[in-house]
């Protein structure tokens, strides 16, 4: 029961912090935080609760971003439909790549997802619609469902739109984890042969988890395209896959709030250290090494462990 209380308090803290954020930080920066927090939560759904380490989640983030940008800039669809188009693209890509990737586990799964994502990257580099190195520019953002102006001149209104997407997706992930489906997923993570012997078709569960994670990652990418009004190759490159792994690892793999904290820390660091250039990469690598060697629970994982120790 106390675990439930902790979750409620933590959720309230997160909700209030993000709701108040546009009065403290630039809304544009706040929206970046929300998009990457959502991306990391989607990734965490797979590694934290399914035990599958994907090293290719940039393909969903990037393709979601590209198709949302394409839908808005070229097809002229309203922004909310464009975002859904991006998420739907990631869903389809998730089914196709998940079908291939779940055939192997562990390290192989990581290598396969990385390779598939690289294939998608080369596709985006070559395909005419993505604009190659230039990306897709000219995403148009006017009125949300024809009512609320979320155009570039109204960043705070747009912030709360992104905030709403994030909170809804976060609650959805929470619901998935605590559903019977989520319990089976945890059973598979802990002991797959036993789950099979209990009669679960584990590959279907893993594929479903993979597709959900992919779709939400695509939603994050699509939202980011709506925020920044463009889509580019960096969103689909392998470094992006690495970054989301880093956010989740630093925040705490398998914790509900860890990815959010990790995303906030990493994205803030990138902003404040931007002028240091390649040093950002070196520091990120250093955080990886430090987390793996001495900080495997991550920030939120350590806090939760501390709370548990205090109770007993």
């Amino acid at each position, binding site marked *: 029961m106390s675990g439930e209380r902790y979750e409620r308090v933590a959720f309230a803290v997160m909700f209030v912090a993000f709701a108040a954020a546009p009065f403290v930080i630039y809304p544009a920066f706040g929206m970046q935080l929300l998009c990457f927090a959502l991306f990391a939560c989607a990734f965490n759904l797979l590694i934290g609760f399914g035990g599958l*380490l994907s*090293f290719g989640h940039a393909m969903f983030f990037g393709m979601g971003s590209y198709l949302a940008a394409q839908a808005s800039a070229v097809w002229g669809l309203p922004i909310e439909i464009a975002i859904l188009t991006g998420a739907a693209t990631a869903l389809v890509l998730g089914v196709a790549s998940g079908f*291939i*990737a779940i*055939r*192997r586990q*562990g*390290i*192989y799964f*990581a*290598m*396969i997802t*990385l*390779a*598939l994502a*690289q*294939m998608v990257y*080369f*596709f985006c*580099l*070559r395909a005419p619609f993505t604009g190659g190195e230039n990306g897709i520019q000219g995403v148009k953002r006017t009125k949300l469902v024809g009512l609320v102006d979320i155009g570039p001149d109204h960043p705070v209104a747009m912030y709360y739109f992104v905030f709403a997407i994030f909170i809804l997706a976060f609650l959805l992930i929470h619901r998935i984890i605590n559903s019977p489906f989520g319990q089976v997923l945890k059973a598979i993570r802990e002991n797959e042969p036993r789950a099979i012997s209990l009669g679960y078709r584990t590959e279907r569960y893993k594929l479903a988890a993979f597709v959900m994670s992919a779709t939400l990652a695509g939603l994050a990418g699509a939202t980011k395209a709506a925020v920044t009004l463009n889509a580019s190759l960096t969103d689909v490159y*392998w470094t992006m896959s*690495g970054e989301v*792994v880093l956010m989740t*690892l630093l925040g705490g793999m398998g914790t509900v709030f860890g990815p959010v904290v990790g995303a906030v820390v990493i994205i803030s660091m990138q902003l404040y250290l931007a002028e240091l*250039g*390649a*040093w*950002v*990469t*070196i520091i*990120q*690598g*250093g*955080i*990886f*090494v430090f*987390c*793996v*060697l001495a900080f*495997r629970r991550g920030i939120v994982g350590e806090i939760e462990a501390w709370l548990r120790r205090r109770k007993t």
Partner: protein
Amino acid sequence: MRGNVIPAPDGGARGQAPSGIQSGMNTQALFGQLLIGLINGSFYALLSLGLAVIFGLLNIINFTHGALYMLGAFVAYFLLEKAGLGYWWALAIAPVVVGIVGVAIERLMLSRLYKLDHLYGLLLTFGLALMIEGGFQHEFGSAGLPYSIPESLQGVQNLGFMYLPNYRAWVIFASLVVCFSTWFLVERTKLGAYLRAATENPSLVQTFGVNVPRMITLTYGLGVGLAALAGVFAAPIYQVSPQMGSSLIIVVFAVVVIGGMGSIMGSILTGFGLGIIEGLTKYFYPEASSTVIFVIMAIVLMIRPQGLFGQR
């Protein structure tokens, strides 16, 4: 017309020669791409060989492999620039230097992770790769540094149907020699027998009085030494640049998934085979040349998930 060339390259080429300049130029382009394919195949084979040997004993996938390949090329560059020691010195010194770096990485960091989930080894080596590549990018920027072909290997041979640069012939020859020496070492010597036994059951081998931890350390050193050797081979062909390893390693991961990490010979055959297929694709359908290996990976995973030479 092209169809005649594929099944019997030699006969086809001779048969084409009298029929006109046009087809003669085509065959030259075809053999040019085949040569590039063989060169790339040499690098795939050398790198996947190292990955396979390391994976066999340490059960980790060494993400740092690409960065250490790059480091090998940079050691060759430094030897020439700072110490005036040429290519042949670099061939001997670079693998040793990188091997020592590898021994340090294994002793100081990787050895702490063997009891944990193997994914942590992947995450750690990924972080190390970011640090090494970021560091070199900070120092040397993204532009490549030239490294010239040693004098004794300059010049070309006219084979009648194509011109064969001496250096490229040397790289293919030397890679084959190194690959088969490694195969011989692992599969046909007493040391290799210990190695294979330790792969099967490390604690039993230790009971027999073999120092398994030292063997693990040296194996890692040997594996990354092979990567460094590939880096020195690559230096005169591609330029020496901080990013030369990162995109290559992802392709090598796909090669490893296709071959399966079961056997040394499997790695060699898959590496060269895929290099040749990639070269042929560059000739017949250049648009797909950067993705063909990933497509093959997807197909292999559908038909034979454990890889061509892998055991379940």
